[in-house]
């Protein structure tokens, strides 16, 4: 028998507790929104896989990634954000009420921030599945370095993660053999890391290679590399293998609802808005140029702020703009424009003359155009005629007579 799920209501549900999700939580909770962060593993996300973070501003001593994200977590908790460490099983983000379900709970939220990040890409080589977890293939040097003391390890990849984590492994392992798919001397990492790696006596490079297969009795003992130009198979004896060949976005659960790019990353605008109202995305899960803790924090701040604005505007919209109990008219204008400002007096006059029968209000779009978007039009000025809580039509020639006639005939 299926267990009855416990229903909980929140203003904002944030999926993922990496740097982006944690920052969004800080912004949401600080705006007094009831906020819950759902994380399937360790709070801190991908940053916790990194031993030294050199370029996150404010931390000159190259802390472990976890040291930075732990502080973010404390900050979010202090602001009042709640945390739930479990996997999200399904979501329904298309309605006004957003639903996020876990094994035991059903969360209903006004807004959802997707900050689910990515997971390590695997090579897809033969027998890879047999050696995952503790059987010889790892994706986290921070986690498994100590258990490789005096061992021989193979590293796959030549990006920043591969080379920097590979160098970290040389502090423990006796030899680190790096498989690079490019020609000799070409790596995807930054120049500083590359120079240091080439000068490191414990590091060896096997150029122009990819993994062909993983071999070993119970535990991995050989990585068979394939030379890309000669197709020669090169068996490399080792104790463990670390794969650092990029990431794939965690978007399987939302792919039918949220617009993704061909690689599976979420498309957003610069306000972190997705194709769905009230649904925002932040961090590595988003289609973006530079994936760093610093940019994840920026995304999170914007998404948190955007969620706050969305919720506030939805409330204003339903209570004050498009009322279901009273038909009326909304004047939408930009207060920076003198001409548009002057027409405000028309609304004031209408309120004093017809306020008993109709609801009149004005919306200034100078700070935010969220309400204008909800009214369905963002070229100003205009008057929206509201009937039964919905926009009936727009008026461009704004005068007392035109508005009142429209209300009487609509």
């Amino acid at each position, binding site marked *: 028998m299926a267990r009855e799920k416990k229903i909980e209501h929140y203003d904002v549900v944030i999926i993922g507790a990496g740097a982006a999700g944690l920052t969004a939580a800080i912004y949401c909770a600080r705006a007094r929104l009831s906020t819950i962060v759902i994380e399937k593993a360790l709070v801190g996300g991908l940053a916790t896989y990194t031993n030294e973070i050199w370029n996150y501003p404010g931390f000159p001593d190259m802390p472990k990634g976890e040291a930075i994200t732990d502080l973010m977590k404390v900050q979010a908790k202090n602001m009042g954000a709640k945390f739930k460490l*479990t*996997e999200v099983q399904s979501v329904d983000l298309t309605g006004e009420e957003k639903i996020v379900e876990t094994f035991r709970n059903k969360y209903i939220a006004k807004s959802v921030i997707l900050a689910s990040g990515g997971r390590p890409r695997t090579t897809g080589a033969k027998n890879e599945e047999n050696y995952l977890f503790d059987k010889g293939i790892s994706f986290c040097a921070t986690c498994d370095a100590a258990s490789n003391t005096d061992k021989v390890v193979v590293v796959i990849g030549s990006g920043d993660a591969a080379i920097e984590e590979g160098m970290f492994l040389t502090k423990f392992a006796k030899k680190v053999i790096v498989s690079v798919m490019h020609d000799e001397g070409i790596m995807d990492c930054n120049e500083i890391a590359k120079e240091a790696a080439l000068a490191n006596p414990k590091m060896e490079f096997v150029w122009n290679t990819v993994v062909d297969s993983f071999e070993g009795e119970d535990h991995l003992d050989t990585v068979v590399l394939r030379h890309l130009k000669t197709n020669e198979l090169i068996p490399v004896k080792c104790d463990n293998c670390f794969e650092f060949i990029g990431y794939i976005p965690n978007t399987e659960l939302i792919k039918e609802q949220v617009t993704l790019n061909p690689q599976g990353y979420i498309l957003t605008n610069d306000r972190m808005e997705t194709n769905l109202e009230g649904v925002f995305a932040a961090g590595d899960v988003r289609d973006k140029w530079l994936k760093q803790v610093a940019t994840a924090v920026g995304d999170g701040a914007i998404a948190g702020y955007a969620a706050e604005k969305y919720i506030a505007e939805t409330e204003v919209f339903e209570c004050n703009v498009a009322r279901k109990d009273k038909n009326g008219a909304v004047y939408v204008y930009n207060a920076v424009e003198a001409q548009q400002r002057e027409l405000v007096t028309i609304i004031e006059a209408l309120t004093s003359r017809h306020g008993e029968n109709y609801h009149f209000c004005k919306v200034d779009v100078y700070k935010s155009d969220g309400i204008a978007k909800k009214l369905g039009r963002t070229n100003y000025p205009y008057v929206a005629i509201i009937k039964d809580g919905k926009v009936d039509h727009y008026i461009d020639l704004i005068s007392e007579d035109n508005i009142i006639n429209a209300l009487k005939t609509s």
Partner: protein
Amino acid sequence: MSKEVMLDCLGEACPVPLVKAEGAIKDLEVGDVLVVQIDHSCAVKNVPEWARKEGHFVDIEEVDDGEWEIIIEKAK
């Protein structure tokens, strides 16, 4: 009746908690619960991931700062 088994991995670094958890779950019946107690954050990454890949239900409780209980309900 389903039972709940505690597995003390406090003080153990990766991959020890994972190896112990793999061993412990073999002795359980479907519906039984294994609670793995850990205080090395690395195990919060690999133990839940392994357990979910095996098809079990997993929840994590942060019982104290830097101390977790990984609750695994054996599903098959």
